[in-house]
């Protein structure tokens, strides 16, 4: 058995402990240009960023809430506090992190994980990163891994050139909101030819009632670079609706290769409206691993833009919706160059009246000749109350593209449960086996600790399924 390291988040009770909130700064409810200016001033940002935020706010105020997918009418955006800075400055030594915050992170096993297999840890507490560290050898190779706030100051030109260029405030209401109030997140830069062979990891976590989480992740891989970034998420349980509207922008250079892995496990009151995009240059590779657990509502459609000839995208996703959850997830791939290839492989599971939808987009531009796309998505419903479906959309401007598409929607078979039970296996375990078997073709592609984590999360979700 592998030791659990980066993805320790399975025991929800562990995550659902919350610290007493101590805030140095708390912005007023609702959003005004004054609030935005305050945020920017507090962060001591350059003028261009302040202007960018204000412009985004304007767009935000004009945009409508999406009327497709999940129901967002319970989401009171005015109630969501945009910016909460924890009572802590950036620390590079674990010992100096305030005790309270440390206890929360300790229970997530972060310093442990760091010691064992991680190159660096960026832990987000509320909106700002309080802990940041990167192994020295990586620093020597020119790898940069730091929080976004400091990256703007230390690497202003690089950040300015890339920041919200892939995801713009004009894309939708929540990308505009993100542009206005973003706070915290990670910046990763890997120079040409450098291969980072240990995964970089970040933990995002929020801890204030009504607080939104708007972290921004920007990863740039130069030509021939390689990296694996792991985003770990969990949040304590609160009664007030919480919103997560982060943004992830990934720039994959020529011949570069990036794996971006997330197993999200939000508390059940969370609106997870994250936007993730990757731009891939010639012969570059983006690999997504995406597990969506928890949350009240998730709308998450990571997009790969295959811009360079021969670029490749792989998306592997598992979505599990239980009672009271509406998870609308899927992969978007845009073939914008010849000989580009993409593989999308997803499994959705719904139980206890949960709703799990696969909503995917496959687009090919006129010059995407000799492109190849394979989409396989399957859904499994564990009872008659649950809903699961696949809604793939294709927009093809060329017919010189090879497409393989397979979609299956089904309900768990009573005969199969009976068969397994006839060998002494109890009903709960029988169902868990069938579900694990259902995701197995995906799990076996994952690194071992992820596969173990996925299985644990599935078992946890299935506990008490009976009756």
């Amino acid at each position, binding site marked *: 058995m592998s030791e659990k390291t980066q993805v320790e988040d399975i025991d929800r009770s562990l995550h659902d402990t919350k610290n007493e909130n101590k805030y140095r700064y708390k912005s007023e409810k609702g959003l005004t240009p004054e609030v935005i200016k305050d945020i920017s001033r507090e962060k001591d940002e350059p003028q261009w960023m302040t202007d960018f935020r204000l412009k985004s706010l304007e767009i935000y105020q004009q945009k409508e809430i999406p009327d497709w997918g999940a129901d967002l009418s319970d989401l009171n955006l005015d109630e969501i506090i945009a910016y909460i800075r924890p009572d802590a400055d950036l620390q590079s030594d674990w010992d100096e992190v305030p005790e309270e915050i440390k206890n929360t992170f300790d229970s997530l096993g972060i310093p442990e994980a760091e010691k064992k297999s991680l190159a660096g840890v960026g832990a987000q507490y509320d909106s700002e990163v309080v802990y940041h560290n990167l192994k020295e050898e990586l620093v020597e190779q020119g790898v940069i891994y730091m929080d976004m706030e400091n990256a703007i100051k230390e690497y202003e030109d690089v950040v300015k050139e890339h920041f919200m260029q892939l995801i713009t405030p004009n894309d939708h209401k929540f990308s505009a909101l993100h542009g206005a109030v973003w706070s915290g997140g990670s910046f990763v830069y890997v120079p040409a030819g450098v291969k980072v062979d240990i995964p970089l990891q970040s933990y995002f976590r929020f801890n204030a009632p009504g607080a939104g989480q708007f972290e921004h992740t920007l990863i740039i891989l130069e030509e021939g670079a390689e990296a694996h970034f792991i985003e770990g998420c969990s949040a304590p349980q609160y009664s007030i609706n919480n919103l997560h509207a982060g943004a992830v922008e990934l720039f994959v250079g020529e011949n570069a290769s990036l794996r971006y892995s997330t197993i999200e496990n939000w508390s059940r009151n969370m609106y997870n409206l994250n936007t993730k995009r990757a731009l891939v240059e010639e012969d570059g590779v983006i690999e997504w691993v995406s597990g969506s657990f928890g949350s009240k509502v998730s709308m998450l459609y990571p997009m790969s833009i295959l811009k360079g000839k021969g670029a490749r995208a792989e998306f592997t996703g598992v979505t599990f919706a239980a009672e009271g959850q509406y998870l609308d997830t899927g992969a978007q791939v845009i073939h914008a160059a010849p000989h580009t290839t993409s593989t999308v492989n997803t499994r959705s599971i719904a139980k206890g009246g949960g709703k799990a939808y696969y909503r995917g987009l496959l687009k090919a531009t006129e010059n995407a000749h000799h492109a190849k796309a394979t989409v396989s998505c399957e859904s499994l419903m564990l009872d008659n109350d649950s809903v699961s479906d696949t809604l793939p959309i294709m927009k093809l401007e060329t017919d010189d593209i090879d497409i393989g598409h397979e979609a299956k929607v089904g309900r768990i078979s009573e005969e199969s449960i*009976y068969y397994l*039970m*006839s*060998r*002494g*296996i109890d009903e709960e375990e029988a169902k868990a*086996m069938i579900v694990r078997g259902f995701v197995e073709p995906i799990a076996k592609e994952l690194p071992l600790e992820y596969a173990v984590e996925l299985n644990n999360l599935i078992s946890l979700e299935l506990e008490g399924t009976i009756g």
Partner: protein
Amino acid sequence: MNKKLLNVCNLKSKVEAEKILQGINLEVETGEIHVIMGPNGSGKSTLANVLMGHPEHEITDGKVEFEGENINDLAVDKRAKKGIFLSFQYPQEIPGVTVENFLRTAKTAVTGENQSIFDFKFLLEDKMKLLDIDQSYADRYLNKGFSGGEKKKNEILQMAVLEPKLAILDETDSGLDVDATRTVAEGIKKLASDDNAMIIITHHNQILDYLQPDYVHVLVDGKIVKTGDMDLAREIEKEGYAAYKPEKVEDYKSAKNC
């Protein structure tokens, strides 16, 4: 010393609104091999499923006792733990779950003892050899893409691993070629002992020649209409079931106390 394992009394069942079993009486002691024959649709698989506890089949009358305990309301997995096993006529395919993983989980459940991965591997290897099953099948997904015959062999492999007290084999020999029938029959014979018993549902005599059953029962329209020995099986092979009408039921052990 033989002891009473199964006691079925006046068992009646229905599925959906359909009455299937119409009053079955059957007693099985350890060390015995019973055979049930009967025309298609007469209720053989239904009897097997009712004994195993299939949730869709409802017992409307009578009782099933296992080792002296009424198990009418016992859940399927609990029956398996008591030592009842059913080799299915149509085994289910379970994608993504390997034969080895599944059987180790089942063995753990049935014995209540953790099975070390290492020891279990050896045990499984052993049983696979016994049944002439290629070792690579341990890593295949349970019944997924198995041929009809392979599925049946896999059922007997499960029986060999789980070592039940009462094994009900529902047409395990259907779909097996001549050599496989011999291998499976010999395997079953090795597993049969004075401590367990078997109920074998079949349409063919080849397997019976190997197993030398103690009793042969004829099931027609949800009732056992005649009980005999191997001679009865041979007679049926020649004459068919035309002579066995349920009206002519000569109730097997009809005087039995229920």
